[in-house]
């Protein structure tokens, strides 16, 4: 049970941290914050990599591959589009 408790501990701390970090966001940044954090939620790519790479089962591998493709779209697309958006927000001279 120890490892599990440790992970739950991590979860609770991360939740509090998340709430503390983003209390005040200017509304101009709402969209980039959303799409940038959306890219972070693509972290499930790590799970997808493990499922694809370390598996003997045929079904598990196909599921992993599908998960990997989707998560990669989420990560790559999410970061790129956020970067593009923020580039437009830079102060004009």
């Amino acid at each position, binding site marked *: 049970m120890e490892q599990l408790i440790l*992970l739950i501990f991590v979860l609770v701390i991360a939740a509090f941290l*998340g709430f503390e970090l983003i209390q005040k966001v200017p509304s101009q940044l709402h969209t980039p914050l959303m799409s940038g954090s*959306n890219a972070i*939620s693509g972290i499930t790519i790590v799970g997808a990599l493990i499922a694809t790479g370390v598996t003997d089962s045929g079904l598990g591998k196909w599921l992993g591959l599908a998960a990997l493709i989707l998560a990669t779209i989420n990560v790559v697309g999410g970061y790129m589009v956020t970067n593009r958006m923020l580039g437009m927000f830079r102060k004009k001279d």
Partner: protein
Amino acid sequence: MDQKTIVDLAYIAASVLFIYGIKMLGSANTAQRGNLISSIGMLIAVVATLFRGGMDYTWIIAGIVIGAGIGAFAAKKVQMTGMPELVALFNGFGGLSSLLVGWAEVAKNPEFTPPEGVSGYSPTFTAFAVVFAILIGGITFTGSMIAYLKLSGKMGGSATVFPGQKIINALVFAALLVFGAIFVFTHAGWALYTVIGLSLLLGVLGVIPIGGGDMPVVISFLNSFSGIAASAAGFVILNNVLIVAGCLVGASGLILTIIMCKAMNRTLGNVLFGGFGASSGGQDVEGEMKAMTPEDAYYVLEAAQNVVFVPGYGMAVAQAQHAVKELGDILEANGCEIRHAIHPVAGRMPGHMNVLLAEADVAYEQLCEMDEVNDMIEMADVAIVIGANDVVNPAAIEDESSSIYGMPIINVHKAKSVFVLKRGQGKGFSGLVNTLFFRENCRMIYGDAKDTITNLVTQFKD
């Protein structure tokens, strides 16, 4: 140090970068760097995972190449007007991915035998985490797809409500809990497939009764869900970086959701279950709307010293942002002070109007928040409302019987004069009559917003 320790340390480094990145995304000067830092965190997490050893790299390379190609293509090609749909789409993919990760774990280890080197592995808890990842991931996926269809106009934007809807949704949810519990305790495959199916169904049922104008709330809520799904997937594979990153996204998405709800003075429950925007009604207003031609508007604007633009979803529909920017420049050259007043829920996603105007190269300093503009609105000679409706309806402050009473609005009715650019006499998303349109200082300029503004620009040039 063994390999596993190094990988775990790399995950900690990645988590720190995500925390920094998300913090920096909250401030204008650091946002772009923040995004970069969080992407480096992601890269570290991915590379560290690949170093775990014993991986079949052919499949992995195939998956990454395909996914990165599609993602990069979509990110480069998308028009800024299509941003809400794209965010919804990416979000849905993330949710589905978490669902599949949970499912793949069961396919790999259907008997839930404890993996080597893990102390205190509990089959029941892992099965519970699988159900949770599938439930949240499934709702995120189909919910986001419905939001995508509504935002892109492939499906009607209004709320779809039918009798007994709430009972059906409650029954589906109850069935989910029952089959989920069966799977947790018996690990039966058929129960898992039922849970997958019901979760996907619940996402559809949950989002169809929510109208287009409430989409800012729905998108940020689903964004939060995609993070929670990743966190749940982290508990399935006992991986701390998934838990931390997913949880950060879950929390930040929830905060954004709360901000959006406050900007409408409604509770999350009311947005999600209220079926708002399906009904019409509201009291009729005395008086009449007074129309104005763009030619007359030109003479007023020519003499104006202080102009406030109030964009809404109609500006996005008419794609009028570039014309607005041009008119703003001309007015400025004419010695006029201009601002763009942006309501937090204007448009179809949080910050939608800011993105469009920034794309049109409007200076960041001209994009003002609601409170800032309300403090000086009396000074404005003209407030030009472009395709916004409910967010400028004075009924929100004056009519206690109104369904939007209490919602903060941009007080354009206090400006010396108001021009409303509108296609017709239709009502706003709330279905309410806008009492602003009947005010003494308000003039309606009917027609396509882009055409009207282009017309004004041409008159200035002549």
